[in-house]
C-alpha cells in the first residue's frame, strides 16, 4: 500500500471526474479516493470506471463534510499523508509531488497550493479577488506568516493535520481562511507552495448567488470565535 492517498470530494462532476483521475494517474501511482457527495448524475460510475475508490455519502453534506469523510477514511486506512484536490480538474496534478515533499520532509503539517505565488495565470473575478485579498490579510496578520491563497483546495497533509481535519473542530460548511487560523492556534505549521491552476471547466462556481454574502459573514464570525476560544 502507498503511504499517501489523493482525496477528491465530488458533487455532480460527471464529464470531468474521469479526466481528472486519468490526469492524476499520469503523475502519481497511488490510491485515489473520490467522495461522492450525493451526486444525482453519473459521477460514481465514471469515477469507478476510471479506477478510483468511491465512497458514497447517503445524501449531500457539502464540500467540507465530503472532504472530511476522505480524511476520516484515510486515517482509518492508515495513510500517513493525503493530498486533497478538486474534482473539476482545475488543480494541476504535476504539483502533487512538490506539495507532498513539504509535508514528507516535516517542514510543515499542511502544504497549500497557492495560485498567487508567481506560477500560472489564474484570474479570479473582481468580487472573488477582493474577498481573497481581505481574508489573506486577516489570516496573514493573525498567523504572522504570509498567506496568499486561503481558499485553495489543493493541499497536502500529514497525519497530525489529517487528525485535525477529521475532528469535530474542523468547520465543515466552508473550510477556508479560518482553518489556517485554527491550525496556527493548534501549533501546526503550514506552508504555501506555488502551483499553476487551470480555469475551472465548470461554469458555476461553488460560491455563487447569495452564497458570497453568507460566506463573508460566516468566515468573519468563524475567525472571530476561533480567536475567542481557549483551545
Amino acid at each position, binding site marked *: 500500500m502507498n503511504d499517501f492517498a489523493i482525496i477528491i470530494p465530488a458533487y455532480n462532476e460527471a464529464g470531468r471526474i474521469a479526466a481528472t483521475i486519468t490526469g492524476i494517474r499520469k503523475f502519481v501511482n497511488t490510491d485515489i479516493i473520490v467522495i461522492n457527495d450525493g451526486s444525482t448524475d453519473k459521477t460514481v460510475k465514471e469515477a469507478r470506471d476510471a479506477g478510483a*475508490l468511491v465512497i*458514497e*455519502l447517503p445524501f449531500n453534506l457539502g464540500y467540507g463534510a465530503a472532504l472530511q*469523510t476522505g480524511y*476520516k477514511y484515510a486515517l482509518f486506512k492508515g495513510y500517513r499523508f493525503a493530498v486533497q484536490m478538486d474534482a473539476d480538474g482545475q488543480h494541476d496534478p504535476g504539483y502533487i509531488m512538490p506539495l507532498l515533499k513539504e509535508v514528507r520532509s516535516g517542514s510543515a503539517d499542511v502544504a497549500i497550493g497557492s495560485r498567487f505565488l508567481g506560477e500560472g495565470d489564474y484570474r479570479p473575478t473582481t468580487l472573488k479577488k477582493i474577498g481573497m485579498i481581505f481574508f489573506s490579510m486577516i489570516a496573514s496578520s493573525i498567523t504572522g506568516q504570509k498567506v496568499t491563497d486561503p481558499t485553495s483546495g489543493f493541499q497536502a497533509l500529514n497525519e497530525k493535520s489529517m487528525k485535525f481535519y477529521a475532528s469535530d473542530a474542523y468547520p465543515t460548511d466552508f473550510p477556508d481562511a479560518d482553518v489556517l487560523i485554527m491550525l496556527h492556534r493548534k501549533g501546526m505549521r503550514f506552508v504555501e507552495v506555488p502551483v499553476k491552476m487551470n480555469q475551472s471547466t465548470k461554469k458555476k462556481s461553488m460560491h455563487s448567488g447569495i452564497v458570497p454574502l453568507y460566506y463573508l459573514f460566516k468566515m468573519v464570525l468563524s475567525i472571530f470565535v476561533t480567536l475567542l476560544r481557549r483551545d
Partner: protein
Amino acid sequence: MTIKLKIIAILIGAFLFVYIIELVRRRKLREEYSWLWLITGSTIVILSLWYDLLVTISNFIGGILPSSVLFFFGMIFLLLILLHMSVKISSLTDQVKNLAQELSIFRSKKERGK
C-alpha cells in the same frame, strides 16, 4: 385584568401544562425538551392567579400595562425556546453528518470485502 381574561389565561396555561405532561407520558416529547414549555405554562397560570405579582413585576421593569408585560415575558420564553431548538438542530446536524460519514466509510469497506 378582567375576570373573563383571567379565566381564559388560566385555562390556556393549565391546558398547556397538562398537554405537555401528557406528551412526556406518551413519550412523544423528551423530558429534556419539556422543561422550558412547562415553565411557560406554569408562568401563565401563576401570573393569572397572582395578579399582584404581575403588577409588581410591571412596576419593577417600568411596564405600564400588566397585560403587555405578560406578553413581553411570553415572547422572551418563546425566544428562549427557539434558541434552544437552534442549538439542538446544530448538534443534530453534526450528529447526522458524522453518522453519514461513518456509514459511507463502513459501506465502502463492506462492498470491497465481498
